[in-house]
């Protein structure tokens, strides 16, 4: 096979990987400070994408512009979900939380199905037809934007986690919640903000990928699965590992569809994950 085709796929995979890292980072942050997981995580990204679709069909609004609406809207949605639902099960057993969020999966997926039908959709953005080339390689503008904005957001968030007061508070809670509370950190407030921030990230990821990923009402669970894979691959609770794992998954995804193709190619990321869990269950950057 031509080496440029492989390089081309590698670049696209890497660029989409920025998004996988970003949605995985949301899961990692929420897990770090609440110890809980949200099986409806990917469904919130589906909500963002359908929001862009609705804004495009009704107002002809570019998805990039829609992100200015989608991100705050999902932040508020995140605050509400945390306040009315998630907060109440913080101390329940893991299985109960799984149930609660699986209930949310059903509600979101069916609502999307009833509102938008089961048709496959995608929304073009202003950069979709623009191609940037470097030598024999060329890449679509929407991929490049996804990479720059998604990767940039991931890097910025990592900087926030490492260098700012908010980040230090988040890490303190993830290390020892009781001690952090005793040090005067408002745990409840931080948890709420982080949960909403994770959902807001999905708003950004959704608006960036409307032209790349095909929308359908049931896409959420698969996105959640990808985010979880990234979360576990990176070494549970490891922020940097999550971002790295996102890129790896993006590449695995691209290689799978290039060399195998079709549905079988879609198995590659899962196969990789299964192998990884068997031979290195602590994740790529996790400590033994």
């Amino acid at each position, binding site marked *: 096979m031509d080496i440029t085709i492989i390089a081309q796929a590698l670049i696209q995979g890497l660029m989409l990987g920025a998004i996988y890292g970003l949605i995985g980072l949301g899961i990692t942050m929420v897990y770090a400070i609440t110890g809980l997981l949200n099986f409806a995580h990917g469904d919130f990204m589906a909500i963002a994408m359908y929001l862009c679709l609705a804004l495009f069909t009704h107002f002809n609004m570019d998805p990039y512009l829609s992100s200015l609406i989608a991100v705050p809207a999902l932040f508020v949605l995140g605050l509400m979900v945390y306040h009315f639902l998630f907060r109440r099960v913080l101390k329940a057993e893991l299985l109960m939380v799984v149930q609660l969020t*699986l209930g949310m999966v059903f509600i979101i997926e069916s609502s999307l199905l009833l509102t938008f039908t089961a048709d496959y959709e995608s929304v073009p953005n202003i950069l979709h037809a623009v191609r940037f080339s470097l030598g024999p390689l060329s890449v679509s503008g929407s991929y490049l934007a996804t990479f720059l904005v998604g990767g940039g957001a991931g890097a910025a968030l990592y900087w926030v986690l490492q260098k700012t007061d908010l980040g230090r508070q988040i890490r303190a809670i993830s290390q020892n919640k009781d001690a952090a509370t005793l040090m005067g950190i408002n745990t409840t407030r931080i948890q709420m903000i982080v949960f909403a921030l994770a959902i807001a990230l999905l708003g950004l990821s959704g608006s960036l990928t409307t032209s790349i990923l095909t929308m359908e009402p049931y896409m959420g669970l698969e996105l959640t699965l990808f985010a979880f894979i990234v979360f*576990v691959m990176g070494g549970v609770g490891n922020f940097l590992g999550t971002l790295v794992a996102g890129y790896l998954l993006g590449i695995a995804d691209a290689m799978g569809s290039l060399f195998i193709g079709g549905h079988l190619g879609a*198995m590659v990321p899962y196969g990789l994950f299964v192998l990884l869990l068997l031979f290195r269950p602590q994740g790529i950057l996790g400590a033994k």
Partner: protein
Amino acid sequence: MMGENSRTDIKIYLGLLVLLIVLLLLPTRLSITWTRTFAMVFLFIYWASAWNIIGGMAGEINFLHPIFIGAGAYSSTVLYINFGVSPWVGMFLGAAIAVVLGLVIGWICYRSGLPHLSFALICLGFSHIGEIIALEWDLLGGSRGLVIRPAPGLANMQFETISTYYYMGLGMAVLMVGICHWISRNKLGYYLKAIKHNETASAAIGIDTVRYRLLALAVSAFFCALGGTFYAQLVLYIDPHSAVSITAVISMILFCAIGGFGTVLGPVVGTLILMPIGEVVRLYVMTGFHLIIYGVLVIVVILLSPHGLVPWFQSRMKKTQEESPA
């Protein structure tokens, strides 16, 4: 103490007996659509109870069941369509395949002591792979699925009247609940309970946790696969989305959650409440809306009574008994 417990038990058994008699007489009053719906409700009671053995009793977040159900549905159907093998025989091949798959996947996961969450993910991953295999493999009909030509006859596990399916489903559900009851009162049930509450401590007192979790998984897989064959024969059509369905296993888990995880009657109560409501909504309001109702109900139940309806009801009964002097 003992007397009070057995008095509660007798009340529950009487209640179940009345329910059973009502269900036995019901088909004479029901339309064909509703008889079919109830056959499906019984199948889900059966499936949810089988899931409950590994999911509720052993406390695992297990999503492998689409594979087990698919193994049962596809094995018997492929054998019947291509080789004329009776589904009564084919279903045991399906069950054997499901047990082997369950044991292999389970052994790999339990051995390495994966945390609950990674295990749940790996299960979802495997189920997804199972769905993809069903989509890709021509023998299994790909995305078009497999159609079973109607040829009523006992040997073909196809019946003239829908009420035969109804009674068969009812029989399966009763049998499965009986098995769960038996397990919960026996060594396996107590071991699973111990493993659920503290795996490390259970291992320390000498319970071979891997072995008993595998045993529970194998039992669960075996019966789920048999249910898969029944499903194929009831609908006479299977495709990857209906027979290797992650939505179906989530529904089962939600039914167990509403009724009460790990309790014998939880899956029965949860399914009997949710599925008929869902069906009414699906038929008279809007298709697809029933899943929203499931989602809302499970959230309400978890917020109000986190352990489900059966434990809530039991504690209520205990309270009233303690309050009344007689």
